[in-house]
């Protein structure tokens, strides 16, 4: 997916000004940046919820069609069961009930919720709710995945288990992914590349992460150096 020369402003606030960004197919781009610098705007433009004032967003054939969006909050339907919350996202794309059932059960099993199918969101913990949302995002047949700080405001243990669940599902079926986060560590651990916003014209910092995802260690010297640079860029932004 490519953002080519896009511009976007909210009244006097210029968020993007002939901004370009390239996200290779089936990779994860982590997007970090100070608040109000266009992270969510970028996601919403990628989802088609917002139109850029100028410029174009080019998607590859494999990225066309619907998108899966993982929000900060789980955004589950309160009066539907865990099972229904995932299955409903498949109804338009899969007319066969058997197929929908298989897919739903598979993804709910992948996030460890096979025993909670009949529960309602109010009966789940915050982490479980977010796992349902992750299962829904992967079950939905989309080739483009947009993550808007989905692991924010969770304790570190829960965050790791959710990131782990996310990566397991992603490795099974890689999709072009834009991952917005505030956390430099998270960005470096998950992304194939990291982009720091803060200048409307170009990324403040863009770094390919050439260490295989499963070999990454946050205490590794290279990772620590990237983290330090990223933190410095964010502080100076």
């Amino acid at each position, binding site marked *: 997916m490519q953002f080519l020369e896009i511009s976007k402003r909210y009244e006097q606030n210029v968020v993007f000004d002939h901004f370009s960004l390239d996200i290779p197919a089936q990779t994860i781009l982590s997007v970090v940046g100070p608040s109000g610098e266009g992270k969510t705007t970028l996601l919403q433009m990628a989802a088609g919820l917002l139109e850029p004032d100028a410029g174009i967003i080019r998607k590859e054939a494999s990225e066309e069609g619907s998108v899966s*969006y993982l929000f900060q909050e789980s955004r589950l339907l309160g009066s539907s069961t865990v099972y229904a919350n995932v299955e409903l996202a498949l109804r338009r794309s899969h007319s066969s009930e058997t197929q929908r059932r298989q897919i739903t059960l598979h993804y709910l099993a992948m996030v460890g919720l096979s025993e909670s199918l009949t529960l309602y969101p109010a009966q789940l913990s915050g982490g479980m709710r977010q796992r349902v949302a992750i299962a829904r995002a992967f079950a939905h047949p989309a080739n483009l995945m947009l993550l808007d700080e989905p692991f924010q405001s969770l304790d570190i243990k829960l965050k790791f288990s959710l990131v782990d669940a996310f990566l397991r599902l992603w490795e099974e079926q890689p999709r072009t992914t834009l991952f917005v986060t505030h956390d430099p560590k998270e960005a470096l651990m998950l992304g194939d590349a990291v982009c720091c916003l803060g200048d409307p014209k170009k990324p403040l910092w863009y770094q390919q992460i050439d260490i295989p995802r499963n070999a990454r260690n946050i205490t590794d010297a290279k990772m620590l150096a990237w983290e330090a640079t990223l933190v410095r860029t964010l502080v100076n932004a």
Partner: protein
Amino acid sequence: MQRVKRNLVLLISSLLLLLIWQVGSMMLDSQILLPGIPPVAQALRTLIAQPPFAHNLLSTALRALQSFLIIVISATVVGVLAGRFEYLSIALRPFVTTLKAIPVMSIILLAFIWFSSGTVPLFSAFLMGFPVMYVQIEMGVRQLDRNLDQMCTLYEFRPSDKLLHFIIPSMTSWFIAGSRTALSMVWKVVIAAEVLTVPRYGVGARMQLAQVQLQTDLVLSWTLIAVMLTALGDLLFDALVHLVAYLKRKIDARGVPCSS
């Protein structure tokens, strides 16, 4: 334990109410001003045994039910439209504000000039109950969660699924609150309208006749019946809400396959 305590408090306060009534009656010592509990209970027994009792009761209940159903259907339709289209909501605001502010008696008296005595309770109850239900439904539509709405769009929910699994469940609490308030209002207005218009059958009409003949024990008996009618209506309504919630859970559970 908490429940037992609560029921005990409820029982004691109910007995206190009866005690105040009985003591008041003994102090006043007048069957016309305030008859005691035994004569009212006797009048109630006689009343129930007489053949037109069921007819009076059913007439009132039918009027209340009719106006309630008309209110529920019309207020839901208009409320949903007003929630969706702001200009309609603005256009309806003067009507709703007027209806909310106008005294019940004015509506009943005016309606009595325009309609026959049987129609007045229906019409008055509709005018009084409609704004209550309408306001709740309109608010419900306006308060629909925009985030969930966006989620339904992004995950390409079919319109029927969105209606069934997002819109209707989100509206349910507003619908229940509106219809519960409208229902209790309907009973009061229907009986008040019957008192003023005296149709052939009706709890209010009997109350009025008893009052004219200074049969206070009968007035109180009919009042007790009206209270019981309202309580029964609330009880049936709550039972219906519970039944629907229970059926929904059953249907939901049936839609979930075994994970193994």
